[in-house]
């Protein structure tokens, strides 16, 4: 049950190279959801998340990767999210996670995506 996957493979990068990273998507997200900047990576969001209980889905890790400008496959990784908003309720830094997730999806699936991947 724990490792249930939704018909897609998770392929996160094996290392982070900040010199080739592209901060434009990150900046776009920070403009749309300014509260995202305040995150202190405590993990309360992923701890409370129902999707996290049953799958590998980890919203804390996803937004950490986004912050490190590692966008590879994140739109797939975000799929299990049900937008229930529990994470937003518990966040001690007042990050609007629901809005963050919706905006991440929008930015990542935009046909005119800024980093032209």
């Amino acid at each position: 049950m724990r490792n249930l996957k939704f018909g897609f493979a998770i392929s996160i990068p094996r290392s982070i190279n900040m010199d080739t990273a592209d901060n434009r998507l990150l900046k776009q997200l920070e403009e749309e959801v300014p509260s995202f900047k305040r995150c202190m990576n405590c993990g309360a969001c992923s701890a409370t998340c129902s999707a996290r209980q049953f799958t590998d889905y980890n919203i804390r890790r996803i937004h950490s990767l986004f912050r490190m400008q590692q966008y590879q496959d994140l739109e797939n990784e975000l799929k299990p999210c049900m937008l229930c908003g529990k994470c937003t309720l518990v966040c001690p830094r007042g990050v609007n996670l629901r809005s963050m997730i919706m905006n991440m999806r929008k930015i990542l699936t935009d046909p005119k995506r800024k980093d032209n991947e």
Partner: protein
Amino acid sequence: MRTIAIIGAGPAGIEAASVLAAMEETEVLLFEKSATTLDNLRDKAFLFPDFSSAADLVEIMEAKLDRDNIKLHLSTAITSVVSTSSATEAGGIMAWELQDASGVRYQADAVLVTTGYKVFDAHRKEELGYGIYPGVITSIDLEKKLKEGKILNAVGDTPKKIVFLQCVGSRDEKSGNHYCSKVCCVTAVKQAIEVRKMLPEVEAYVFYMDLRMWGGGFEEMYREAQEKYGVRFVRGRISEAASTFDGKIQIKSEDTLVGLPLKMSADLLVLMVGMEPSEGTKTLTHQCNCADAYGFATTVNPHLRDNETAQPGLYVAGSCKRPMSINDSLTDARSAALRIAEYLK
């Protein structure tokens, strides 16, 4: 008339001198090994937690010495402190004799040691390249640049990326310092904000193991650094730094929050050097049998008698005891002055 000798004219020594000198029938001898007082403030631009000017604080502190009964001895390093009588002989009060580096002796009824700290010598962490690559600097070097109002990279251009590394020489078995230096986390946040104010285009990254925002307003400053100044925080300790062909600094770390190795090049790598006991502190604490494992001064009781040593009449205050901020050093100095006043009553 009673004479109190204070060793070290940093914030703690000056504060204690001014409190004690306000009492009647008192003379304070204040010794400073350097040619100027307050050297650890003079090399700073703005201070946490309120970004106030270090130069202004120096001026205010200097003015406190403007009393006839404070005798300031500059360029006078005290090398020895011994008690010359037993408590009973002197009617309950020990007599003390100090000696400076040129052999001159001074007598006092009580002694306060405020010999402070020195910064960790970053050359000792060879893998971080300080003294090898010009792009690697310390927080003290950056503070001087902030003071001059000019920050340039190794090849004389405006930097685009600045990386701060916490805990250099602190929390590190290899440096022999297991303790946390307490001031460097907030100093990195403060300096990153200042850099972003001065150079709004620069990207600032802080590599940390924990962010220790213990003081009033510190956590808020951290939030503001993220929210208002866009400073980026990465959890991981930089293991090594090397130079690239174009004078940049390539760093290796692990982003422990995502569990991936990380590489990055930056124009400047700023090492947040920790606090160690100054040479004067080490000499005097060892001589007076109150040195801890590092050479900081220990006291009789950390709660109730935190300025007293085992020897009556010998007191300690400020960052010669452990890493401390300025306001903690000043508070500690005032508390030591009160203890000394009670003792000499």
